[in-house]
């Protein structure tokens, strides 16, 4: 009777040991997988943020940011000075009657007179301003938040932003900005359009992350 009881106890203890070992092993495996997943996710976000910085370098180049002002006027030139001839934004970002963007800017660059042009030349809406009221570019994080905010960006999601950067004529114009009135070529954004699109794609694939700083 006593021998039988001891045998049952030993079996019970053995089974308990096996059970505890299995639990411990599965917990370790789960933690390892979680760590790996978190590490992969962090790496993806880091890559996305790095890609965004490339995108930001283009958005804040004069060819882009000159028409993303927070004020009542566009800018021009690499020094981003106020547009001459008292040009103002107007209600639709296309100037005012008598002094529209289209009063000078045609459907393509006019290299013989030095006036840049492109389809539907206009200022970006104030919701997409990338500068402050002192004409200083906003931080990377602030521009990122503006770009991904669908209430401000004309409802574009990640793929929509990518398509915009790939195909929008005025975006493409930045890499074909034509000649200045003195005949020299306007400067280009810091990276090529292909690099800009690749960076946008990497940022979108990472979930359009933005830094949490101001």
């Amino acid at each position: 009777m006593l021998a039988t009881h001891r045998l049952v106890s030993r079996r019970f203890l053995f089974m308990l040991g096996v059970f505890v070992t299995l639990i411990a092993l599965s917990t370790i495996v789960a933690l390892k997988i979680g760590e790996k997943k978190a590490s992969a996710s962090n790496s993806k976000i880091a890559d996305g943020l790095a890609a965004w910085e490339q995108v930001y370098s283009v958005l804040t180049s004069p060819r882009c940011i000159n028409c993303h002002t927070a004020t009542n006027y566009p800018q021009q030139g690499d020094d981003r000075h106020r547009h001459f001839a008292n040009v103002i934004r107007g209600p639709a970002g296309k100037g005012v009657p008598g002094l529209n963007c289209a009063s000078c800017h045609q459907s393509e660059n006019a290299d013989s007179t030095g006036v840049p042009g492109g389809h539907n030349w206009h200022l970006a809406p104030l919701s997409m301003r990338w500068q402050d009221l002192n004409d200083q570019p906003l931080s990377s994080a602030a521009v990122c938040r503006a770009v991904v905010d669908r209430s401000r960006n004309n409802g574009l999601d990640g793929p929509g932003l990518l398509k915009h950067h790939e195909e929008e004529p005025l975006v493409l114009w930045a890499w074909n900005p034509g000649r200045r009135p003195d005949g020299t070529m306007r400067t280009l954004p810091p990276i090529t359009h292909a690099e800009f699109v690749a960076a946008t794609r990497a940022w979108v694939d990472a979930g359009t992350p933005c830094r949490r700083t101001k």
Partner: protein
Amino acid sequence: MATYQLNVNGQSKQVNVDPSTPLLWVLREELKMTGTKYGCGISACGACTVHVAGIATRSCVVPVSLIGDRPIVTIEGIGQDPVGRAVQDAWVDKDVVQCGYCQSGQIMSAVALLKATPKPTDVNIEESMGGNLCRCATYVRIREAIKSAGQQMR
């Protein structure tokens, strides 16, 4: 050189010019329509303003190759338009002109303004006419004439 068929003041005009030639020079030198003036040549003063498809356009910086089939109206033809007529009458009535050199551009911009905004405020006038310079400083009379023309149109 290239040949262009232009619609100027409702008439078809053919010119054979370099594609990069600004519209202003086509009007003045090829078509001998000298009512439109050369002021600065860089779209800063507005003296060369004409209408292209209804938009007040600085003809000194727009190459003729970019005009296409859009109709052009110059100071010589604006009087055929009811708003243009009202503006020209108001200009005479208010005795706006001093030396007159900038006035064809002023009138073309004023017509564009009144077509879009028949009852302009002072701010509307300052914004729309802000790119048309007048070295005789006839700005006060220009403003009066624009308001007067707006009233005549009603």
